[in-house]
């Protein structure tokens, strides 16, 4: 019997080797070549010793952190109120829908909304903020990125919050806990799973974004993702691009490990 199942595995294994394991190995391999095709450790040395690359990495982290924080702060109460509303399923569907709208379309919409002649930018300018235009600013980038990631934060938070039994909250109130105590001691700790997976699903894409950085951040914001794209498609320095790519993958594993659900073992 098992032999028959084995036959089904052939295309799947082929895919695993050629399109999953292979590309990662190739990325690592490519990172040891300089722009002239010589084998070198230079890319890694350059990355770790050049202030430019370090600054870019730190910036990338800072942006990803701010985007994640902003989405968490906005999404948490939203998800909580969702669990208490009468038509939970409908709300969930309405939240998921924008997540399915092509990222490009959302980014493009914001080019129009935030453009220099639009009312948001002109209102801000007349108040003395962003007089040189709001669109290609860091704030605009963080705002749009947070907008895009918001549904991906709401979903896991909603699931975690919805799983908390109502009687726990009633019990804590019966025992005389204040609203803050109930939140701090009961709701927040029990929703940690959702927070963890929300942070994970928002932080990693935020580190590696390049579409929104280009369209909304102008060409001024360079994140790790933008740098990979730039090295590959603009300067053609695949070696350096791969080095940054390898570092990005390592960071991804690090973040996944840090946010791993320790109870269940496998994330």
């Amino acid at each position: 019997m098992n032999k028959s199942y084995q036959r089904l595995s052939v295309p799947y294994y082929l895919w695993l080797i050629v399109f999953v394991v292979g590309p990662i190995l190739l990325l690592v391999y490519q990172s040891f070549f300089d722009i002239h095709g010589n084998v070198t450790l230079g890319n890694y040395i350059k990355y770790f010793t050049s202030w430019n690359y370090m600054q870019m990495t730190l910036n990338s982290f800072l942006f990803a952190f701010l985007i994640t924080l902003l989405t968490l702060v906005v999404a948490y109460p939203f998800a909580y109120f969702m669990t208490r509303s009468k038509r939970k399923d409908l709300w969930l569907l309405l939240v998921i829908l924008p997540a399915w709208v092509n990222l490009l379309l959302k980014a493009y919409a914001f080019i129009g909304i935030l453009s220099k002649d639009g009312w948001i930018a002109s209102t801000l300018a007349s108040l003395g903020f962003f007089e040189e235009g709001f669109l290609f600013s860091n704030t605009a980038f963080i705002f749009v990125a947070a907008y895009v990631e918001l549904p991906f934060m709401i979903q896991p938070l909603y699931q975690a919050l919805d799983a908390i039994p109502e009687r726990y909250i009633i019990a804590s109130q019966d025992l005389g806990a204040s609203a803050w105590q109930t939140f701090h001691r009961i709701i927040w700790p029990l929703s940690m799973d959702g927070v963890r997976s929300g942070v994970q699903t928002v932080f990693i894409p935020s580190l590696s974004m390049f579409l929104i950085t280009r369209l909304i951040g102008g060409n001024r914001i360079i994140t790790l993702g933008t740098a990979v794209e730039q090295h590959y498609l603009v300067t053609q320095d695949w070696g350096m691009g791969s080095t940054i790519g390898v570092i990005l993958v390592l960071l991804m594993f690090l973040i996944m490990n840090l946010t791993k659900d320790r109870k269940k073992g496998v994330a």
Partner: protein
Amino acid sequence: MQRSNSLLAKIYLVLIFLILYAPIVYLIVYSFNSGGTMNEFTGFTMEHYQNLFADKRLLSIVLDTLLVALLSAFVATVIGTAGAIYIYSVRRPKQREHLMSGNNLLMVMPDVIIGASFLILFTYILPVPLGFWSVLLSHIAFNIPIVVLMVLPRLYAMNPSMLLAAEDLGASFGQILDRVILPNISSGILTGFFMALTYSLDDFAVTFFVTGGGFTTLAVEVYSRARRGVSLEINALSTLMFLLSLVLVVLYYSIQMRDARSNKGGRSHA
């Protein structure tokens, strides 16, 4: 017992909801604007849609995009379903775990990394010229894990004694597959196909890396036009793309709902 929200909570819900939808609505409304910008609505027109449908180049891009999406979703569904059934049949937990982490790797990997590493793959290893074929293969590749993730829960929701019974009654592997397994997981296969279709239509980053310039999909075309600035034709195009993804999502959820109804009790984790 369900406690309701305070007024403030309700306002917050509605406010965030409005923010979520505002850009999409904005985009659609301005696709009918007779003015040239997204700043001021000067009157209703269908002009941008007419221009869109008169654009021969764009029409061929739409066809290419649909072709890539359908083909990649179809091939990925076949390979992914076979893979899922294989993973289901693996007895050793360690091996199954490895297979699943390989599967999930592509799901969590940043798009840029997938794009860049596939570009190296097509340049050095696979003798495929950049263009239609490299895009198609890439889409198949990133669609497979989605199909696996959609099909696996259905397999686990299946009653395993059915398989044993079929085996005891002397059914061949082909018969078991055809009469027992596939009918039981058909809704998973269908949702897997729709998800793959949506992912393929949505993808920008990976395609952007492996097109090599000659071949374009809608997303890549919108990007290169958007970089040149606002043009309401993109709004019209975006509106149509939005409607298409809306149809796919509704299809996906109606399958899910139908499934949830017919499988009460046997709730599997997604």
